């Protein structure tokens, strides 16, 4: 076993704040966020890019952070679940998940909310099949997805009704 790699310095923006950290270049962005930035909202469910519990946004694109090497986060604008709410105000998607039972055990919820927020940003009026497709990379074992769909639909409606609301 040899420590061939030297640690690198990575600079990025996470939830609007500049973040600097030192880590191995192939360390997972997921671990950097959880262990070095203390942002434990993003979860590990599978370590294979299948379950989506580790979903974050990099430069506006939804990605599985368990598959992103830390080096590639340099210069990136990252958003995690902790950056979804606007301070004390929950995002429409978060409010809908609360009102509609979109979260049960909650472990898939951060990733699911990221995926939903990302979907609505790209497609403000998704059809049912758009919603299913947009969330297909996020596995939930508790809900059977039904109330997650209902939550997204409600969030949609709520965002449409308040044009000033951030999506």
């Amino acid at each position, binding site marked *: 076993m040899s*420590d061939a790699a030297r640690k690198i310095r990575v600079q990025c923006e996470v939830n609007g704040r500049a973040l600097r950290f030192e880590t191995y270049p192939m360390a997972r962005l997921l671990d950097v966020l959880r262990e070095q930035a203390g942002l434990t909202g993003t979860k590990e469910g599978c370590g294979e890019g299948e379950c989506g519990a580790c979903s974050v946004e990099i430069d506006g694109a939804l990605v599985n952070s368990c598959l992103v090497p830390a080096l590639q986060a340099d210069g990136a604008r990252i958003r995690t679940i902790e950056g979804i709410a606007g301070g004390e105000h929950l995002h429409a998607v978060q409010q809908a998940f609360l009102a509609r039972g979109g979260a049960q055990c909650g472990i898939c919820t951060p990733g699911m909310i990221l995926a939903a927020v990302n979907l609505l940003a790209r497609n403000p009026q998704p059809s049912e099949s758009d919603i299913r497709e947009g969330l297909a*990379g996020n596995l939930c074992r508790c809900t059977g997805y039904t109330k997650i769909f209902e939550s997204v639909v409600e969030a949609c409606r709520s965002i449409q009704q308040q044009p000033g609301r951030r999506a």
Partner: protein
Amino acid sequence: MRAYVPAYELEAPRDLSAALDRMAREPGAWKPLAGGTDLMVLLEAGKLSHRRFLSIWKLPELRNIKVTPEHVTLGALTTYTEVRRHETLSREFPLLCRAAAETGGVATQNRGTLGGNIANASPAADSPPALLVYDAELELVSAGGSRWVPFHGFWSGYKQIDLRPSELIRCIRLARGKKGWKQYYRKVGTRRAQAISKVCFAAAARIDGGRIADVRIALGSVAPTVLRAVETEKILQGETPTSALLRAAQETLAREIAPIDDMRSTARYRRRIALNLLAEFCETLSA
């Protein structure tokens, strides 16, 4: 996480020529890493045997999609998301867009690249069958120059491609002109999304006067490589689609493919479904 992460080197060359110089100086020592959707999975499973990687993810020379009257040329770093959003590709290369849409989910599509998919050389890859149908050509580039190769034949064996240790895939070129062809793509996976294919079938045919004037058929997950079914194409070439023709084509296809049993499916299932999809494709030709 089963890997000893400190043992893995990853460096980001500032541009393509710096990357190629590195790879030329020590051929085979450095391997490219693009979106990581294959390599990072191996890393986490403790199965990534190579230790030194060059991050090519940000190299601008490998991005962008160029459209000319004759061709659409996709940079190797074109992601599945970019394929799906491209207007010309959607209109003229629907099989490639279908393949991209059925690869993983949104998050995978944002990071997975066509070049990475080709270099990973999995026989279960979703896009290569479409690329074969579209007679794709690859530009392979090294510090010493570049060469164009047809994608058909690029694969020599299980996980073996004609890519030299100092080479990178720069772009994938597709000839326009199959616009009027009947096109068919079907991936049969373990579930509707986020699925590795059990059988993947891509095909296109030009019908002229009721006959199959020209045809391409390619399959994934039924052989050690993604396969262009040239013998089956020969059976169909120039003929009128009939049930007798279909039977003959199916017999040939059954011999051309070499499916196996694995933890996802069985050889028997794969063979039967490959023949059924051929039938489904042929049905669209007489419609």
